[in-house]
């Protein structure tokens, strides 16, 4: 068996300790890594062998949990999905853009969590029925209408990529709006009207200018940009019904 190739990797990591630092600063690490490792492996090696004070979030190491999002060379990425072999020279690792830094690479996701709640990302049944009447059934065709938009792992890379969210923090943003669309499209759901009160506002879908960066960085191929454009069509048709058709405003 041939030995695994190794490579000396240089990482420049943003450090911030709220107890001692007045502002964040970069710290350079040199760490011997195997060729097929990802950035998260390099960070784990640093934490284990060089600097146990380094803080970052991670859990599954397989692009499923959405915990390890960071800016890698200025691009929002899951660090478990960013292969070292894709980078040359010093790799710059920073916390996700547009979120307040809690410590080192750990950001505070509170703003996203609050927005997620506002769009009611759960099935609001058209009509409640007792458990004795069985499940709310759905055909495969009905499932396919929203399946893609249900693959979101809440990693927040789309928020870090979205220039509108960076400039207008009140913007509800790509992932939360996409999830609103996902439940609007669900055949079992009757909550579209409630959600559109939040979605069809200036802070909602109308703050989006269709830059499309959200879809480029999404590790789950959800394509939030397409969901938001579809929401704009839905919102526009609602507007016509409410304003131009007599008796349309309920």
């Amino acid at each position, binding site marked *: 068996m041939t030995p695994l190739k190794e490579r000396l990797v240089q990482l420049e990591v943003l450090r911030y300790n709220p107890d001692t630092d007045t502002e964040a600063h970069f710290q350079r690490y040199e760490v011997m890594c195997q060729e097929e490792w990802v950035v998260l492996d390099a960070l784990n090696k640093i934490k284990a062998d060089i600097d146990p004070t380094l803080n970052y979030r991670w859990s599954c190491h397989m692009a499923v949990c959405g915990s390890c999002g960071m800016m890698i060379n200025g691009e929002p990425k899951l660090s478990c999905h960013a292969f070292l072999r894709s980078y040359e020279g010093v790799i710059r690792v920073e916390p996700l853009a547009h979120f307040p830094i809690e410590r080192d690479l750990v950001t505070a996701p509170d703003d996203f969590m609050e927005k997620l709640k506002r769009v009611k990302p759960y099935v609001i049944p058209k009509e409640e029925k007792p458990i004795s009447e069985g499940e709310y059934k759905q055909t495969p065709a009905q499932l396919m209408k929203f399946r893609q938009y249900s693959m979101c792992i809440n990693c927040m890379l789309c928020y870090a990529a979205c*220039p*509108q969210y960076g*400039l207008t923090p009140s913007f509800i943003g790509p992932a939360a709006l996409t999830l609103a669309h996902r439940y609007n499209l669900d055949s079992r759901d009757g909550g579209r009207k409630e959600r*559109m*009160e*939040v979605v*069809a*506002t*200036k*802070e*909602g879908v*109308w703050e989006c*200018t*269709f*830059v499309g960066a959200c879809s480029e960085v999404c590790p789950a191929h959800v394509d939030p940009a397409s969901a938001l454009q579809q929401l*704009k*069509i839905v*919102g*526009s048709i*609602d*507007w*016509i019904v*409410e304003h131009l058709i007599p008796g349309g405003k309920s």
Partner: protein
Amino acid sequence: MAKSHKPVVWFPFAAGGTVIAFCIPVIVLLTFLAALGHVPAGLSYEKLHAFAAGGIGKLVLFGVIALSAWSSAHRLRCTCYDFGLRADTLVATVLYVAAIVGSIAAALFLLRI
């Protein structure tokens, strides 16, 4: 927060975007061909003039020009916003007025044919 009235400007923008996607590349190609002296027989000056002289021709040309102008104005407004130019009301007013003036001019020119 109340629902937004953005659909008023967004619907013509979306329609204009579709028109631009379909028509403008063809128009650019035909203009290039004409500039190089290769005018397809069916698109000669006389034929196009006759098309623009008819009611339906005027309507089609006005639709393409006005929707494209509106769509471009809105796109430029969004681009300004993306680049952090936050005087949105001023930018929107200037660009939409330009699109409306362009559309009125197109209508006047078409009516004179």
